[in-house]
């Protein structure tokens, strides 16, 4: 074919792919905008800075967890144990601080994250070295870690009362109007996003999820990468735990109960393919924000509390169905183009 034609086709291809890669995030942003607009139309106070601030606040911890989950899902694995890991780290942080009010906070964070990472390492080793399917492993550790949390707390609870204000303020204060919690989430999001996008290790996670055997033939050190993904996911769950304590002050053995499905839901709504290879942490974070916003707006709209869960489920289904249809259309388009090229 002639050069200009090719160039044109190239351009089209570029536009198409750009679209494919961005559309999910766009989709959610639009959905969010609509949701907020509608809610605001009925209840203007919903878009007062104070309330928007709260939306971001509520979403930030879930966003952090969703980012971690994305790392794992992208490699064709899954981590069901996030909720339990979060609980462990949350209680650790609370326990340390109520034991010793003036423990330097960085230390607390470090320890909380370390504990999470350790749990992630445990999961990761079982998956890579033990060759046990991630679903089985993390379903098991979901129970084990939770049980350990119960054993450890043994009915005790950490109260805001016993925690240093400096720490609790992390959960409520803002810097230049942006809640500190949200800043945490943003930093995590951007760092991870960059890592996935601009570093070999990150790209290889996608390769592994996209074609495991191919990754092996291409000399990608799959096991090591998958292990990394699990450790990072664990560490982020740990961070989430510490922040959970900072925000809610009260922690007992039931903290983060049932989070796993919500977090996966957030990632999936955000366009992370459950079978790996595609999806971005930004999408996942937006997904978390969208789910949080729905809950809040349904409350504000005085919708019976009972509808909330149903709405979230429906949204999730719409999201994946939408993904699927877009995916099919794009595949068809790409195939037709390459066929033209061949013929």
């Amino acid at each position, binding site marked *: 074919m002639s050069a200009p034609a090719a160039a044109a086709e190239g351009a089209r291809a570029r536009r198409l792919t750009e679209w494919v890669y961005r559309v999910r995030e766009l989709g959610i942003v639009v959905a969010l905008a609509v949701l907020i607009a509608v809610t605001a139309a009925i209840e203007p106070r919903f878009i007062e800075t104070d309330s928007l601030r709260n939306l971001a606040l509520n979403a930030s911890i879930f966003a952090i967890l969703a980012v971690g989950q994305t790392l794992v899902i992208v490699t064709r694995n*899954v981590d069901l144990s996030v909720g339990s890991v979060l609980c462990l780290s949350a209680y650790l942080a609370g326990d340390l601080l109520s034991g010793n009010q003036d423990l330097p906070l960085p230390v607390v964070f470090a320890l909380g994250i370390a504990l999470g990472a350790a749990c992630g390492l445990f999961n990761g080793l*079982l998956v890579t070295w*033990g*060759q*046990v*399917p991630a*679903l*089985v*492993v993390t*379903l*098991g*550790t*979901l*129970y*084990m*870690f*939770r*049980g*350990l949390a*119960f*054993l450890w707390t*043994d009915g005790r609870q950490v109260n805001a009362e016993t925690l240093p204000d400096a720490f609790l303020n992390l959960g409520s204060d803002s810097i230049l109007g942006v809640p500190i919690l949200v800043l945490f989430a943003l930093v995590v999001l951007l760092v991870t996003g960059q890592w996935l996008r601009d570093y070999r290790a990150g790209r290889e996670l996608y390769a592994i999820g996209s074609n495991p055997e191919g990754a092996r033939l291409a000399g990608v050190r799959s096991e090591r990468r998958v292990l990394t993904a699990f450790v990072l996911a664990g560490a982020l769950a740990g961070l989430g735990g510490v922040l959970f304590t900072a925000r809610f002050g009260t922690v007992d053995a039931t903290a983060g109960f*049932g989070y796993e*499905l919500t977090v*996966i*839901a957030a990632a*999936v709504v955000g366009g992370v393919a*459950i*079978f790996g290879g595609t999806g971005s942490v930004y999408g996942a974070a937006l997904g978390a924000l969208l789910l949080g916003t729905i809950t809040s707006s349904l409350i504000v709209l005085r919708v*019976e*509390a*009972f*509808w*909330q*869960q*149903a*709405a*979230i*489920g*429906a949204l*999730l*289904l719409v999201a*994946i*169905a939408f993904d*699927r249809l877009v995916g099919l259309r794009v595949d068809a388009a790409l195939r037709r183009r390459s066929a033209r090229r061949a013929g």
Partner: protein
Amino acid sequence: MQAETATQGTPPAAAPAPPREGATRLRAALGRWEALLIGLIAITLIAGSALSEEFLTADSFTTGSLDLSEVALMALALTLVIVAAEIDLSVASMLALSSALMADLWNRGLPLELIMPICLVAGALCGAFNGFLVTRLGLPSLAVTIGTFALFRGLAYVVIGDESVTDFPATWTDRGFGNFAGTFIPNTIVLFAILAVAFAVVLHATPFGRSIYAIGANQEAAYFAGLRVKRIKLILFTLSGIVAALAGIVISLRNSTAAANVGQGFELTAITAVLLGGVSIFGGRGTILGVILALFLLGAIQKAILLSESISSYWIQIVTGALLVGSVLGPNLARRVSEMRRRHAHQHPLEEGQ
């Protein structure tokens, strides 16, 4: 290699003699996994009776099995779904929806005899909905059923809200709670037994069941062999819905309470039972017998820990989780070790280790 040499020259017709065949079939029926489970059960029974003299009693069996009856029912259908290499996380939510429907219709004054069929139909519809999204839209069942997990539970609340209906006629609630004709075997377990047999026959002895294995082991090959892959999967999800709805009826009668919040977290317990029963999460492998044994094991462990004055009930979760992981990890490691030995002995392919 051995395979080749073993039959070199011998005409295949003469290969396996009928008696040996029977033996092998028996061995197949009680495969390594089932043996493992039986071993674990034995250990649990011993440990349990050491922990409490109350453990090895008809009572323990009655109450212990009652506690698990709904999970057990759902595990049966779930086994088929997972053998077909799919998954259904929405079972507990369908159970709740069925219970909620039951409550609502009862409040509207319908007779139970009419309500129950309606609940089953509702369950079938929910299951079919899952199946539709998976087979027609080609969505991954994991994602779909996470969605319907929330959707169905939500609908349950929409139907009955915060109410809980507790005034079902004693004749029915007794059926739910009572034992079978003066034995120490709860009615719910009799129901389970009947279904278990039915499911076992379907899965292990019918073309349908055979198709499920083929699909689970290699969907493409199954399709190339002319099997109706999509339709079969649709049926499986529908079945899962019906059984979940049945479990919803059972739990409502057994607890003489119907509400939207029943059975939270049952889905994970049921999946645990299925996987512990030796069903491969990747499909194509596993038996109903294994799942039944796994359920028994879980029940026994739970009972033992509850009855012991010394061990706190937190341990139930820890032990369950450890078992789940260990049951898959153990064989893997064993295989790895033996392979390493073989390779060192007479140079075997690295590849198969992975």
